[in-house]
């Protein structure tokens, strides 16, 4: 036994992971992974292919993958059939302000839960966690009426303002992260006479950049892609977001699949670019969620 451990120690990490799926050869695993990747890429490829075809080509049998001729005009045609430029600007405004609100407010609240003792803290945090499990879609009717009375319908406010009061998931994620930042730094700053707010802004926030990044990218994707919210709150075309514009575009034509695919490809572009630029925040954030969730 002793010898065993001694030999295994330097590369212990690799030793037994080998025991996973021992019956599959490396080639078989790669083949399966590749098959998965092909299935992921297949709808993308078909989208791009269709978006560059003429209408007749989209109806051809057997279907071809390479458009001939390549119909680049589909893109300008689709994007001007409805004011998609405007929709993009609208979505960007809503998303950027929502991300700012969500990150700032959730960080403040999470810091409160992570760093101060006060009566009711445990109960309040429990409520935050339980709201993670409440299906808020059930509240769309009273919320709609609330915003109607505030005179906010057909403005971006119902989509943006609630984000300035912290989101349960973001608060949870940030609080878990703040808890891992050692208190020594806070203590040292306190000795130097820094206030709670100064410590939060100058010490905690800069150290929490990975968690703040994760919260920001998740909020970006969820706001950018939101459909039900804009559908309920926005009514005039000039206020549409990309998602509801795309749904409306589909109802305008019904079978113009080459144009729908061109518009869809453009709609997918922004979140994909953000994903590729900020991949590590997505991945680490998701991993954090899982391990956090497993403890809660």
């Amino acid at each position, binding site marked *: 036994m002793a010898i065993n451990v001694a030999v295994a120690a330097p590369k212990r990490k690799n030793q037994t*992971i080998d025991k996973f799926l021992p019956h599959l050869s490396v080639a078989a695993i790669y083949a399966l992974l590749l098959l998965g990747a092909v299935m992921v890429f297949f709808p993308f490829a078909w989208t791009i292919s269709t978006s560059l075809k003429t209408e007749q080509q989209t109806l051809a*049998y057997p279907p071809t993958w390479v458009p001939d001729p390549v119909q680049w005009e589909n893109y300008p045609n689709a994007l001007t059939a409805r004011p998609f430029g405007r929709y993009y600007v609208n979505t960007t405004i809503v998303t950027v302000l929502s991300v700012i609100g969500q990150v700032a407010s959730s960080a403040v609240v999470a810091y409160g839960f992570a760093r101060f003792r006060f009566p009711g803290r445990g109960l309040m945090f429990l409520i935050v966690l339980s709201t993670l*499990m409440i299906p808020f879609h059930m509240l769309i009717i*009273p919320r709609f009426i609330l915003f109607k009375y505030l005179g906010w319908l057909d403005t971006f406010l119902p989509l943006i303002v*609630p984000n300035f009061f912290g989101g349960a998931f973001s608060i949870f994620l940030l609080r878990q992260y703040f808890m891992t930042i050692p208190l020594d730094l806070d203590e040292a700053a306190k000795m130097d006479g820094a206030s709670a707010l100064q410590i939060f802004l100058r010490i905690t926030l800069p150290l929490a950049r990975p968690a703040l990044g994760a919260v920001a990218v998740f909020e970006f994707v969820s706001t950018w892609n939101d459909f039900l919210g804009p559908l309920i709150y926005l009514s005039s075309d000039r206020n549409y977001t990309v998602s509801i514009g795309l749904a409306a575009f589909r109802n305008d034509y019904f079978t113009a699949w080459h144009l729908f695919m061109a518009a869809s490809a453009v709609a997918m572009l922004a*979140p994909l670019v953000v994903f590729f630029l900020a991949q590590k925040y997505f991945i680490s954030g*998701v991993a954090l969620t899982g391990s956090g969730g497993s403890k809660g």
Partner: protein
Amino acid sequence: MTAINMRPGPAISARTREALNGYAFVSPWVLGFFIFVIGPMIGLVWLSFHRWDLIGDPRPVGWRNYERLFSDRLFLKSMEVTIVYGLGRVPLGIIVALGTALLLNNRRIQFIGIWRTIYYMPVVLPPVAVSLVWMWIYNPRYGILNSTIQQVLGVPGPRWLDDPALVLPSLMIMAVWVAAGRNMIIYLSGLQGISNELYEASAIDGAGYWRQFFRITLPLLTPVIFFNLITGMIDTFKLFTQAYVMTEGGPRNQSLFFTYYLFQKGFAQYQMGYASAMALVVFIIIMALTLLVFRWSKAWVFYEGELTGGA
């Protein structure tokens, strides 16, 4: 002496000051909770006892909305559709995500980062765009799926979204395509957290792969599976975009998901009171289901803390 005098009055001790700071920091959430959760919740209960089309004043109708609910064939249908979909989609999602994570959790496999990125990609896409793309794939006449079936097998393919029996499975496949990457990453990080000593010890005892899988891997992943189960359940009740864009609840109401029906009652037919009663009842059902799953989880979810605590 001066130093002591310069301190703030004795009434505000360090502890009180800390508590006040705490309340100040959490106050945005408290405020939001009352405005956007508690307030609407009260509104929901109140509305559910009224009849209101947004014009004029709400009229009290007692329990009539609730009575109507239980004889509303479409409401019952929407519950059935949502539950059947959830029962298929959640386990299917768990199997695909866990399977992929097991493949990737292998030292002989290179470029884990790249695989992870590829599989995660669909997660970030706008549901409306994804819905349009899959509608086109599933198109019975011109879709790539049926064209391929025709070419390879020489028989016409099924009608997918237009077939009452296939509409839910078709939507499940699409949902797994979208979400598998995210859940796979959660499982992968769970797998990487399992200490090797456990496998080493059981290997010495002569345990093979499957024995290790059922005795070590799966039990230690149950917290993640549980998390997946809860989020999957809630996501199912939130499902809306696909029903609105792809199927409009059809064919023959076979994809009349609950949130889609709620939207129709509330925002197409302006039956605010009735829709509120519907939302409230389903709200209570979901909370009861969640509690039930939590209860049930005590029987099978395994926390590593218990292991060290018990041993």
